[in-house]
């Protein structure tokens, strides 16, 4: 006999999901549709007059050198953040995995930075590297290296990448460590008995088994670098110097909230929306299959 639980209520399920649906509509669907709507309008900030301009705002942004530059900057920034945050955290996780004494203390310390808000992290690094009062900037001056991220685009980019990656290392560390501990020990022991060096064991066994985690983290880190790093940029560079760190999400804020160019800003956020949707699709299509829950 088959046992099956059947809920007879017709409305209860809908009622139960209603709060979640309502939240999704109010905080996601509604703003997103507003962005799409505004992106085809040219509007004064007060909403007194709005003209339908079709795709003119999109044409504008894609013929705007600053915007195209911003796409490039975003790509460089997110890839650097992802690569640095992931490689450092993988190294730390591999080391922490082998530590026996005081492991909890190490782990806690490494996870700590994740509790720091991006803007606060930004302020922290800003003060360390401030050309006038920063201690690191001062040491570099002593060593004969001129640090001035308010003028040098490369330095500014490195600084925001470090500040953004620093925080994300903790997050990645957690996942890598969990991934490492999930790898069955017999595999590694067997390889060790066969005479494989620790490095060899890492590359041939650990690394492939970690790949689903790594893939998941790539997507998460890129999403983080795209959207959550606003505070870091805002505090440290304002997108400067000369747009060297003007990432797309910062430009949306800048054009919309400071420049009051609602149409252009909305068009940019639609572009960002498309990017995040495609990232999510990639994540679900490729990772869902490989990750076992």
């Amino acid at each position, binding site marked *: 006999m088959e046992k099956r639980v059947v809920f007879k209520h017709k409305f209860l399920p809908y009622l139960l999901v209603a709060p979640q649906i309502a939240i999704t509509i109010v905080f996601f669907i509604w703003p997103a549709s507003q962005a799409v709507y505004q992106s085809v309008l*040219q*509007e*004064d*900030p*007060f*909403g*007194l*007059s709005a*003209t339908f301009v079709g795709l003119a705002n999109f044409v*504008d942004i894609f013929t705007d*050198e*600053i915007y195209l530059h911003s796409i490039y900057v975003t790509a460089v920034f997110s890839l650097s953040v992802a690569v640095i945050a992931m490689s450092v955290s993988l190294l730390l996780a591999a080391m922490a995995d082998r530590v026996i004494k005081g492991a909890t203390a190490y782990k806690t310390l490494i996870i700590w930075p994740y509790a720091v808000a991006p803007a606060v992290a930004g302020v922290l690094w800003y003060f360390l590297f*401030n050309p*006038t*009062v920063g201690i690191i900037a001062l040491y570099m001056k002593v060593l004969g290296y001129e640090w*001035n991220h*308010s*003028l*040098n*685009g490369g330095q500014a980019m490195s600084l925001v990448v470090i500040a953004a990656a620093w925080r994300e290392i903790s997050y990645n560390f957690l996942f890598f460590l969990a991934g490492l501990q999930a790898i069955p020990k017999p595999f590694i022991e067997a390889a060790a008995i066969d005479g494989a060096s620790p490095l060899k064991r890492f590359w041939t066994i650990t690394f492939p088994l970690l790949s689903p985690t790594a893939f998941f983290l790539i997507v998460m880190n890129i999403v983080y670098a795209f959207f959550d790093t606003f505070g870091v940029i805002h505090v440290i560079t*304002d*997108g*400067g*110097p*000369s*747009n060297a760190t003007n990432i797309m999400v910062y430009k949306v804020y*800048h*054009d919309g*909230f*400071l*420049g*009051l*160019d609602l149409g*252009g800003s909305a068009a940019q956020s639609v572009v960002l929306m498309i990017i995040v949707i495609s990232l999510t699709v990639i994540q679900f299509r490729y990772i869902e299959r490989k990750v076992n829950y």
Partner: protein
Amino acid sequence: MKKYRFLLVVALFILGVSVTSAQALTEINWWHAHGGRLGEKVSAIAGDFNKLQNKYRVVATYKGNYADTMTAGIAAFRSKNPPHILQVFEVGTATMMAAKGAIKPVYEVMGESGLPFDPNAYLPTVTSYYTTPEGKMLSMPFNSSTPILYFNKEAFKKAGLDPNKPPRTWPEVADYARKLVKVGYTGFSTAWISWIHLENFSAWHNVPFGTKANGFGGLDTEFVFNSPLHVKHIQQLADWQKEKIFIYGGRRNLGNAKFSSGEVAMYTESSAGYAGFKKTCKFDFGTSMLPYWPDAPGAPQNTIIGGASLWVMTGHTPDEYRGVATFFTYLSSPAVQADWHQFTGYLPITTDAYYLTKGQGVYEKKPGMETALKQMTLHKPTENSKGLRFGNFVQERSIIYGELEAIFAGKKTAQQGLDAAVKAGNKLLRKFEKANK
């Protein structure tokens, strides 16, 4: 009994409501952008006004920085619940002016109220930024400042320079800076580089920053700050940066620490920075008027202001507007203005307040405070020195910042950078023109 008690409570409640509504003051909401000590001062002004009369109550609310406050005001207007008074920074002026259905011009508010209002009582260089070409006041100036030169007197002494003889021209600044570099200082730097070295530079040298009287004459204005004089000045700064007698200090006034820490010995910054430097500088410093190029025929003219003004928003009752007018009258009174001026270092907005402060002997004790006023009122403002009125100016300023940074990093010449800024800026001006037709 219980029933009666309930009824009694209800009756008392109704009575209470009707009593309060009979006594209710008309509330005037004022959204401003002053945090910290300035914010307390703003609340004190509103509080004093509320104590002085019993018809209106001004509620001053801090809404974040200038951009936040403006955005909050706009969002409130869009959701049909705007404040009565909104503080907007000077670069937002064109945006507010163009929003005809959202703002109620100050001259109208004052005229309808029947209260005495004399536009000539106000300092022309301050109000001209916020008046129509016909001289009608659109917004009430509140906090205005203008850039001046600060110099480290101790550094001057060390370099063998006379601390009572600050440099008057740019070539003199360079000479002084070279001498200062020899005794370990980094010459000079600046805050607000677009505002000081392009916008005020134009007014000070009596050359246009944009066509159509710097945008006062119409939305079809175009930028012209790539003239030979502008290019010469910016190229000179870039060359001086290479020579290491000038250093770019970053956007906004991020470079202030360079002056207060004693790294640079001369610094151009807003007159409103005076109080801050008084607090943070551990050395004696002096102020003087902005340097100019002696070979420029129009210089020195007068400088223009920065800061913010108060805009009245539409959508309120005549009684509330009367309250706004009453408050503005109070705000413009010499005593309130003189106190605000002396407390903050912002310029007074009326001539009476200026003379009141002068009479109190304040300028003898703090000579730096008068530098800005003298410089602003040096000559009668011309078309080039009344102020600026460009739409999308916030974005244009950040374009200018970007190009200047490219120039100072040596990636572009001054000519290339300014040409690019003018070109990109004009594109934004056309966009604004199109959106506000």
